[in-house]
């Protein structure tokens, strides 16, 4: 549904959405997000660029999974395919057993580069989704906006336009906007990239609180391994370009986690090892 490429009909030979279920062979239970054999090749003037190859992993309901990998390894590409923003060249993503074909409010998104509506104030940006789907139970729309802005520490910028914000402030608005509609799944692409350490620590804590309280399913892209270890249940480690899944590391630590503890440092070292032994 792009400008000039809107196509509201279903492809005649596509599967009807909402009916087919994709059972996870390994667990016998339907994972909330199932990424199966996904590959993506971009066609450019200088020939095809393979971004990811045969990527397969699952995210269970209520699980917090991170994707880490070096720059250019296809993390954002995988994120966009799960979000339904990009069609895989091969393979498919299923969410709740339904083939992903387009984005929707069941999957809240936070982008690597803040994609704020420039014509809306900070509060207006947060309000956008609420105007579509209404405020979550127990909130009025205004209360929800206020609550989300408090969460990211931007109450005083409620009436500012995006151009008047600093880089980190803009990214926080993007996070507040995605949280506002209270989606069951959160997809985040390096959401804390331009946020300072202190705010980031606060946001980590807040995100985990929200996650614990609401049991959201979170798929989190980052290049910060410490962040991944601190937050996730499992970490999907991407190889260098073209991205493949080198390993899925389970982080079996209680929360809140101690960033300096031995178990923590061990896991961090294990993830790091995937990158250090690579050539280049």
């Amino acid at each position: 549904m792009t400008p000039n490429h809107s196509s509201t009909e279903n492809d005649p030979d596509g599967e009807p959405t909402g009916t087919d279920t994709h059972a996870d062979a390994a667990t016998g239970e339907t994972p909330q997000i199932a990424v199966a054999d996904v590959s993506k090749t971009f066609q450019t003037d200088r020939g095809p660029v393979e971004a990811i190859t045969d990527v397969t992993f699952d995210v269970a309901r209520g699980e917090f999974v991170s994707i880490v990998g070096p720059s250019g390894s296809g993390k954002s590409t995988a994120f966009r395919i799960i979000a339904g923003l990009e069609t895989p060249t091969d393979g498919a993503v299923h969410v709740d057993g339904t083939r992903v074909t387009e984005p929707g409010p069941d999957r809240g998104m936070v982008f690597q580069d803040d994609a704020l509506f420039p014509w809306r104030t900070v509060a207006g940006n947060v309000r956008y989704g609420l105007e579509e789907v209404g405020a979550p139970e127990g909130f009025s729309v205004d209360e929800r906006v206020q609550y989300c802005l408090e969460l990211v520490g931007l109450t005083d910028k409620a009436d500012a336009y995006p151009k008047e914000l600093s880089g980190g402030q803009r990214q926080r608005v993007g996070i507040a906007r995605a949280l506002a509609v209270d989606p069951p799944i959160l997809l985040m692409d390096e959401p804390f990239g331009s946020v300072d350490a202190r705010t980031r620590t606060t946001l980590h804590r807040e995100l985990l609180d929200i996650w614990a309280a609401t049991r959201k399913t979170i798929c989190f892209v980052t290049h910060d391994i410490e962040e991944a270890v601190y937050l996730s249940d499992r970490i999907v480690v991407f190889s260098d370009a073209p991205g493949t899944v080198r390993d899925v590391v389970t982080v079996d630590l209680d929360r809140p986690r101690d960033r300096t503890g031995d178990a923590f440092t061990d896991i961090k070292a294990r993830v790091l090892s995937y990158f250090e032994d690579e050539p280049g």
Partner: protein
Amino acid sequence: MASSTETDTDPAGYPTGRLGYDQGRSIGIQLAALVGFVLVWWAGALVTPQNLLPQPPAVLEVLVADVSSGLVFELTVQSLRHYVPGLLVGSAFGMAVGVLVGWSETVDLSVGTVASILRPVPPLAWIPFAIIWFGLNDSGAAFIIGIVAFWINYYNAESGVRGVDQQLLEVGQSLGTKTDLGLIRRVVLPSALPDLFTGFRTAAGQAWMVMVAAELLGVPGIGKHLWDAANFLQMQVVIAYMLVIGVLFLASDRLIKLLEARMLAWR
């Protein structure tokens, strides 16, 4: 980027003092440009047959006479009676169709194809149809003006919609805007608003010119008066009313700019 001027030698006096100086300079340059323009015209008029390029005083004389007789205002009101409806209706249709063509491939292929056949039809060639469909009245002239306003708004709206940031659409969809109509209303239109304004401003300017041609239809107004004067080679009248159109153009342009600045404060 900040200017390279340095201001801290008198930090306290800076804001107002500086503004005063800038404004003074700006008005000065504008005045100088106007005076220069009149002088060039005058010099040109001295070496050109008087009945082709009259000197400024001859034109001024016509203006003074017609302002005091009220003719200028009478003609302006007559012209506005088709200028305003033509511009507004034509622009509204143009924006609507342009947005749809920019948005949907199917509409582009169907409406866009027909549009590319009709587009090059000169506005004047619509005169017979204006007569058949609307008659010899303000509606007929408004139709011709509307045609031109339509095309300009159509193309600006189309390119505005095509230029909408992909990612904002993605965000809109992910936040629950499902329908095409919803995306258009909540993401595409606000995004494309600057382009819509550009289109409308251009159309408002162009419409003054087309108005002159549309009044060939026999509808009274400034343009009609201008044609009569040209047919009798009264160039001082022609130029006087060209200046009148110039003033009307500037007034409408300022008005739209003002509106634009208000509605696009976020930029």
